[in-house]
């Protein structure tokens, strides 16, 4: 405990840095995943391509990406942009599939009736298909966020890893307490953010639980 109590300001600033590095990629990945998921859902060819490519991206080891990205992007090896880009790629890979699945799960009868009411495709997507896919997409966003929070720590090996720095630093200097504290803070952070996302989801989709409950009783 002495190490923790003596280093609270450091833990605080590392947590903040960690959050920024973890969440910005989730936002970027989601924003890109929505149009790509929509495209993937339009043709079976698009679907096959998107899902295979995203699956492939996800299998690249994170450390390799961190090391290779500077060469691809022309950035410095210690540039934090590397981490943001790498994690955005992972989030995107995870969420494209989720978005495509969520869109294909929207009941065709509802989409058809929207068309018959006089919705044009873009407005229909924004007003009907997208809102109806929120519950499934949000479940994917929760997985992606927790995974992103955990993956940021790997960035410590290339200089910017938020709380991951407590692992490398604690290991190099032989302070076990620092390593353990780092693990605990990462875990708590993941749980808190996940809980917030869950609450956000419930707030913006009040109809979802009602519909699910009615589905069980019928």
């Amino acid at each position: 405990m002495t190490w923790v109590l003596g280093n609270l300001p450091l833990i605080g600033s590392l947590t903040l840095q960690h959050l920024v590095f973890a969440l910005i990629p989730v936002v970027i990945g989601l924003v890109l995943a929505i149009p790509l998921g929509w495209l993937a859902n339009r043709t079976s060819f698009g679907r096959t391509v998107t899902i295979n490519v995203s699956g492939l991206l996800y299998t690249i080891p994170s450390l390799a990406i961190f090391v290779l990205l500077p060469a691809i992007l022309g950035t410095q090896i210690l540039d934090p942009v590397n981490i943001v880009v790498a994690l955005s790629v992972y989030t995107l890979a995870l969420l494209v599939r989720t978005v495509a699945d969520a869109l294909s799960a929207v009941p065709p009868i509802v989409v058809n009736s929207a068309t018959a009411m006089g919705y044009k495709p873009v407005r229909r997507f924004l007003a009907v298909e997208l809102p109806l896919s929120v519950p499934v997409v949000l479940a994917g966003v929760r997985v992606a966020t927790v995974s992103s929070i955990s993956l940021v720590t790997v960035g410590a090996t290339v200089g910017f890893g938020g709380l991951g720095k407590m692992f490398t630093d604690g290991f190099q200097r032989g302070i076990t307490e620092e390593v353990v504290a780092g693990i605990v803070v990462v875990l708590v952070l993941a749980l808190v953010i996940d809980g917030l996302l869950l609450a956000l989801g419930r707030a913006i989709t009040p109809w979802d639980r009602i519909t699910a409950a009615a589905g069980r009783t019928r």
Partner: protein
Amino acid sequence: MIEFRGVTKRFPDGTVAVDALDLTVDAGKITVFVGPSGCGKTTSLRMINRMIDVSDGTIEVDGQDINSVDAADLRRGIGYVIQQAGLFPHRTILDNIATVPLLLGWNKAKARRRAAELMETVGLVPEMAKRYPAQLSGGQQQRVGVARALAADPPVLLMDEPFSAVDPVVRESLQEELLRLQGELGKTIVFVTHDIDEAVKLGDKVAVFRTGGILAQYDEPGVLLARPADDFVDNFVGRDRGYRGLGFLSSTKLPLGELPTVALGEPAPRGEGWTLVVDGERRPQGWVRGVTGPVGADLVPGGSLYDISSGSLRSALDAALSSPSGQGVAVDGDGAVAGSISADDVLRALEGARRDEAAA
């Protein structure tokens, strides 16, 4: 008015769903498309609002070729009700109904006012406004579907098997409701069903389709029942068509006979015949025969009643056939006994109607 001119629908696999259809849907009337599955009735309906594209021929709505306007604009001007309602699960009932007005650019307050008005029109209580579709029964959802289709007051309403997913009792009340609404609104309605009874009940005119998208007969329901164009229509119209056809014959010339009645609590009349028991307003309560003392208990339940203000030959005949005495009870608009009706009288009236028709 909706005009089909030589309309054909061929699907990419070569199937012909609708084959050179020529048909005029009258303005302000209910026209029912009916037929077995694969007869092209639904395809024909969906071509009207371009949910399905026409392969050959033209469709005009109120004189305008449907292909001359933008599809979305066309659809906003045509109400559409589908099976299972197809409501938006993420929107409240009020916002579901306000859909088309909002698409047309009305402001939110006005669209919601209109939606609230329509909830009343279709018989939904205001408390339902804030609920979600999943909280409503199938019948209530279908009412919302009708309200949503009517929201922008379109002259044309397309109804695609709207009542087929609800149970028979609810279906019957929705049908009654539709007829009542139509009496007030006078929309041009195209209604698709596979149920000939529903077609005959709702349609001012009925178009019977046969497999392959061919129009077999297009007539008023009474004519369909009395004179099916061929064996297919005869078969499709089904059993008891002679009896059901009576439902479309007016009973205004039916003579009413005397009916022995006794008021509740009065002493029973002597003799072996049946006597109808009535209450203080002369409404029928049941029958008695061969009892002594004041009537009240031991009433034999009566059959169906024939309402002289609105009944058909079918209801008159049924009243006679279902009465324990063999004498049908005719009542006036207030439900008071007006006289008796016998099966023989109904058959004679039917003869008369046949002669009139032959002479005309």
